[in-house]
């Protein structure tokens, strides 16, 4: 599903990633761990094509993303569900509308929206908040909106950047259990986190990264 070969990424003089190589197979559940500033988000951004590598090769779903044409980027991203560390919810739309936008983006017929939205909001526990605006929500709730939007499109690949960063333990556990469930349905899940309790509790493959270099990748 995902193959990094000697990937390097620099921000000016800062080396965010140095010679990073790993492979993630279809249907895997992987934690990318490491301290803050290690390069976890950078890896996820490279997979999504939000950033371009300075060196090395990245292959996602059989496609070398160097060969991805600008006009094909949207369709490439439509197959990927992303839970963003900074939520990236649309501030001027309600919870329901935020989720709905993802369905509109993938071009799902409008008559199927309601059922899917209700289903996914129930899954993340935001049914009551459907008509609230982001400014009316807590950090944890915003994170779950981001999650609902990522899940509603039924993506092949789920990228989650610190999805439990703003959540208490019980909710965090619930979210990761949700990921497990999705993973059992055959979806590939990649979750960046520095939450050791989560990593310990859910025994998954770990790619540990420190200072932009891979320490362990199982």
């Amino acid at each position, binding site marked *: 599903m995902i193959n990094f070969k000697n990937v390097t990424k620099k921000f000016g003089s800062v080396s965010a990633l140095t010679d990073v190589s790993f492979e993630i197979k279809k249907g895997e559940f992987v934690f990318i761990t490491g301290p803050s500033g290690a390069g976890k988000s950078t890896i996820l951004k490279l997979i*999504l094509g939000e950033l371009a590598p300075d060196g090395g090769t990245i292959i996602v779903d059989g496609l070398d993303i160097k060969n991805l044409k600008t006009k094909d*980027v*949207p369709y490439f*991203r439509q197959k990927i569900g*992303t839970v963003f560390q900074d939520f990236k*919810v649309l501030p001027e739309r309600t919870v329901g509308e935020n989720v709905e*936008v993802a369905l*509109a983006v993938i071009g799902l017929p*409008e008559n199927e929206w309601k059922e899917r939205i209700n289903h996914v909001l129930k899954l993340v526990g935001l049914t009551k908040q459907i008509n609230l605006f982001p400014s009316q929500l807590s950090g944890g709730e915003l994170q779950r909106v981001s999650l609902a939007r990522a899940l509603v499109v039924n993506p092949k690949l789920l990228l989650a950047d610190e999805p439990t960063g703003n959540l208490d333990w019980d909710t965090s556990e619930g979210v990761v259990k949700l990921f497990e469930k999705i993973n059992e349905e055959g979806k590939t899940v990649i979750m960046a986190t520095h939450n050791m309790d989560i990593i310990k509790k859910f025994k998954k493959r770990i790619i540990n990264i420190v200072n932009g270099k891979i320490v362990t990748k199982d």
Partner: protein
Amino acid sequence: MNIHFRTAVGYIKRSPFQAFAATFVLTLTFFVATLVATLVYSSSKLITYFETRPQVIAFLKDDTGQTDIADLQHKLEKDTRVKEVKYVSKEEALSIYKNATSDNPLLGELVSPSIFPASLEFSVKDLSFAQAVIDQVKGEKIVDSVGFTAAIGGESSLKDVVTRLRTITMYVRIGGIAFVGILGAASFVVLLIIISMRMAVRREEVEILNLIGATPAFIRSPIIVEALFYSLFGAFLGWLISFIAILYSAPSAVTYFGEIPVLPRDTLGLFELFGIFLAVELVAGLVLAMTGSLFAISRVKKSR
């Protein structure tokens, strides 16, 4: 309701003053455009009227017999350069005179039918034929003298009248079209400003939509819908206001111009004319909105 439509409605609701400004300037533009279009239509009708109806009057000798008159009338009717030949008897000539002087009955009382000669009135199809036809008719035995009727503003011949009308109409048209052009440019700029502001406000939204895989078309759709809304609504409203204004003033205008068809006389014709105006204006609004929004979007992209 389509999601882009809903998004556009959301924008409009959130910034009603921008929406008002856009609608206002577009309404004004299309209001003036409709008035100018009507003016252009009416003035061209006015010209056509005078161009095609340079009435020539052949005054007949007093003792001409009916058969001679009929012969000449027939001859003129067969002439391809001539049209609308009409016989005016002495009595009719008198009643025309009496009508014309009805506000001063004394003038009407003073005259008797005998001083008004009978005449054959006709028009030439094109002014260039006028002189030749007049010379020919002058040569007819039963014709006493030949003259032009219409003499507006002291012009000595119809040709001068038409030339003068043409000049006036040309200025009216150039002025009107320039005015509409300036207003159109103002509308365009206002649309551009509003769309650019929208793009700036939406920067964060655009970034997020990009990340979740929205196509450029998806991202710009609500903005185009919004621009379309302003321009189509403005076009319709501007048209409607001027149409109502013209409907109100039409009766007096029609009376003032008498038999000159400055506006279609029948309701159906009037509605047809304004239907055409509306259709053209809606298309113009569409073009304005599309070029405006696509231009603004491409500018914003370049500046990034």
